[in-house]
């Protein structure tokens, strides 16, 4: 039953979407087609879908790990930004120093840089929770803003392109820092394969290793975790560092891949969208892949709806909200099985 509820939620979202289109005076059927079919139409569309899914998969995997062990990391967006700064900083350095290297040599380095930066940022949350018992929902969320301002300071200040007519952005990164492409001429890069590998790794970790099982005890049964002697400190650190690293890698891929430079607008909400992905994917690594597909479909559908039929691009945000809401509603209704009763 719990696997059914994401499916029902997607269908409900489509129904609400159709009603919304009708209310906006558009033909619901053709609008739905733009949202649900166009993103799958042709190789380019499919690679774009995979490209958008890549950061979502990476971030959602880490969040699923956190949520399974009752650590409520809401600030993946901040860890994503720090990863972007880490990866972007490395690319900037390689560019300005004109270091000769092949993109394939740069690829693992940018992963490490992003992972370290993201993990460090999540480490702040872990430290605050572990040492001062500060609520991680608040701290992780607030650190998103700090990360965003830090990025702005960098691109308005020390990292600004000196020949950039005072635009707040870094120089365009050199070609050796570009992520290797999967198909020539398409933007899809090999980072997407890393995301799939990470999903496989997460699956093995969660269901085939002791540490993974250990982490999943504290969430549903804290008394059992105490009884077994599993450390809640270790759980906080492992989950936050891992999810921070994954979000950081996603951020590094974004700037070294499609963006190619740092601007104040690296943040596009992937960190928040990934929260929905994790829940739609039932906190399961495979589900995260599927969920990322659905959510990137909405993201791309939103862009298409704007350019093709002149609908506001905010619509994809509305779709995300409706999806999350219907998912939560389905879960609750399925769990409690309420009935209509005549008298009350």
């Amino acid at each position: 039953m719990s696997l059914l509820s994401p499916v029902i939620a997607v269908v409900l979202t489509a129904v609400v979407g159709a009603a919304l289109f009708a209310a906006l005076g558009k033909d619901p059927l053709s609008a739905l087609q733009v949202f649900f079919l166009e993103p799958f139409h042709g190789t380019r569309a499919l690679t774009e879908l995979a490209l958008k899914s890549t950061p979502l998969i990476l971030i959602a995997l880490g969040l699923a790990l956190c949520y399974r062990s009752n650590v409520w990391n809401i600030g993946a967006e901040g860890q994503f930004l720090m990863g972007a700064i880490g990866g972007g900083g490395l690319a900037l350095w390689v560019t300005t120093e004109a270091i000769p290297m092949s993109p394939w040599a740069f690829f693992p380095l940018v992963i490490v840089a992003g992972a370290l930066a993201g993990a460090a940022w999540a480490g702040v949350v872990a430290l605050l929770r572990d040492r001062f018992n500060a609520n991680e929902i608040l701290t992780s969320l607030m650190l998103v803003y700090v990360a965003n301002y830090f990025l702005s300071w960098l691109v308005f200040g020390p990292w600004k392109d000196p020949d950039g007519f005072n635009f707040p952005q870094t120089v365009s990164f050199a070609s050796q820092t570009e992520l290797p492409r999967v198909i020539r001429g398409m933007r899809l890069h090999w980072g997407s394969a890393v995301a799939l590998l990470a999903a496989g790794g997460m699956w093995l970790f969660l269901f085939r290793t002791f540490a993974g099982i250990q982490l999943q005890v504290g969430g549903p049964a804290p008394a059992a975790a105490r009884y077994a002697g599993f450390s809640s400190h270790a759980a906080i650190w492992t989950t936050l560092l891992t999810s921070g690293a994954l979000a950081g890698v996603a951020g590094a891929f974004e700037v070294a891949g499609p963006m190619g430079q740092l601007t104040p607008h690296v943040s596009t909400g992937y960190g928040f969208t990934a929260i929905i992905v994790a829940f739609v994917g039932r906190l399961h690594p495979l589900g995260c892949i599927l969920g990322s597909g659905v959510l990137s479909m909405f993201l791309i559908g939103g862009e298409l709806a704007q350019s093709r039929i002149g609908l506001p691009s905010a619509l994809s945000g509305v779709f995300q909200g409706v999806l999350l809401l219907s998912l939560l509603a389905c879960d609750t209704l399925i769990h409690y099985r309420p009935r209509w009763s005549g008298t009350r």
Partner: protein
Amino acid sequence: MTAPRLQLEQISKRFAAVVANDQVSLSVQPGEIHSILGENGAGKSTLMKIIYGALRPDAGRILWNGEPAQIRSPQEARALGIAMVFQHFSLFDTLSVAENVWLGMSSSISLQQVKDGIRSKTAEYGLELEPERVVHTLSVGERQRVEIVRALLAEPRLLILDEPTSVLTPQAVEKLFVTLRQLAATGCSILYISHKLDEIRALCHQCTVLRGGRVTGSCDPTVESNASLSRLMIGAEPPRLVHREATPGQLALRVNALSLEKLDRFGTDLHEVSLDLREGEVVGIAGVSGNGQQQLLAAISGEDPRAPDAAIELFGQPIGRLRAGARRKLGLHFIPEERLGRGAVPTLSLAHNMLLTRNESLRFLGWIDRQALKHQTASIIERFKVKSGGPGAVARSLSGGNLQKYIVGREIDAVPKVLVVAQPTWGVDVGAAAQIRAELLALRDAGTALLVVSEELEELFEMTDRLHVMARGRLSPSIGTSAATVELIGEWMSGLWPTGPEDGPGASIGEFP
């Protein structure tokens, strides 16, 4: 001839892996106290939930006062006049007794009416219960009383009680029985489930025996003996426990004047608790639950690592601040009384639940050898006759007694140096109880030091070599079990024991030099 109050015809219910009820038929007359007897996993709770509308049967029909009835939900059951007391309470701690009762009622009744109702019901049946008291201040026995009064207020024509006595003291059980007999005399039928054969013989008029989901017989319990009842139930008498003299070895566990403030407001402070436990002996702690046993056990197991380091010693090593996992590595295993949520994670499989306390199937870097884990789980399932869907079944799907068997089996199978057990046979049937006690004694004979905390005096007298009594957070000196009497232990339970270990009748008997 009036129609039976309740008649079940060919009720069947199947879960994915097991048939829980297989064409069960039975009838209950007005005013009859009818017991359902059966080993763990026989399908008793499932059948009761079907009658109460909490589960739907796959086949069969229910007749109520001779009329076919569709019971699709607990509301519909209550509308017919069926009330049920579940084994696990469903009360809100922060609300008062009256508010808790009020919650389940139709909205046309005012809180004042509920309070008056509770007062008149408690007066009628001689149950003491103050409707204004907040539930978290009540003892477990009093909470059980709230559940029973709530059921009584519905003026039921059929009352279902699923193992209601597991948390009651013998005196409270006596009181409950008086109430139930009065109730039956007014024409209310009662369905009563318990694994305690004495209770069934004392209380019930009729008895239906379930085995593997089928009705295998019925009898008049008043003319049966415990032995014949257990033959009906498990096909054999439980083997008698042979209790050989203990030959205690070196000191294994020592608690040194442990004082500990309670962790939450429902707890009890510990005052200067001292205890010695040697290899090859079984020491029991008697007492009504809620007198600090939970706090003491948590301090010993390491779930509560606040004790001063030296207050608890394991083979001479101070362990007061070690976590449960570290203590287990040193050979100290623990069986908690809450099975679901503490002894086992409800949503994980039995195989994964092994990993809470056992690491034999772990390989390099914590990689789980699934084959080894499966074998280990299967061997425990087989040895302790745990009825389940196999190692892959999630803990939540097991019947209460079967989960208890699994957890006890998991710890016994580890052959620990020290084993601390709370309520080892809670909710398990007579056959399984006998097996668990025998296995625990076999561990003792192999040199394990055992500490058993139980509310069942009989069990303690049967199993232990020495006894302590716990009352209001203090622990009595120990007494050799052979020298102890029920009267003496009862006296000690009220906190009246000789103060020095040397200066009382029998206080030093059984202390080993």
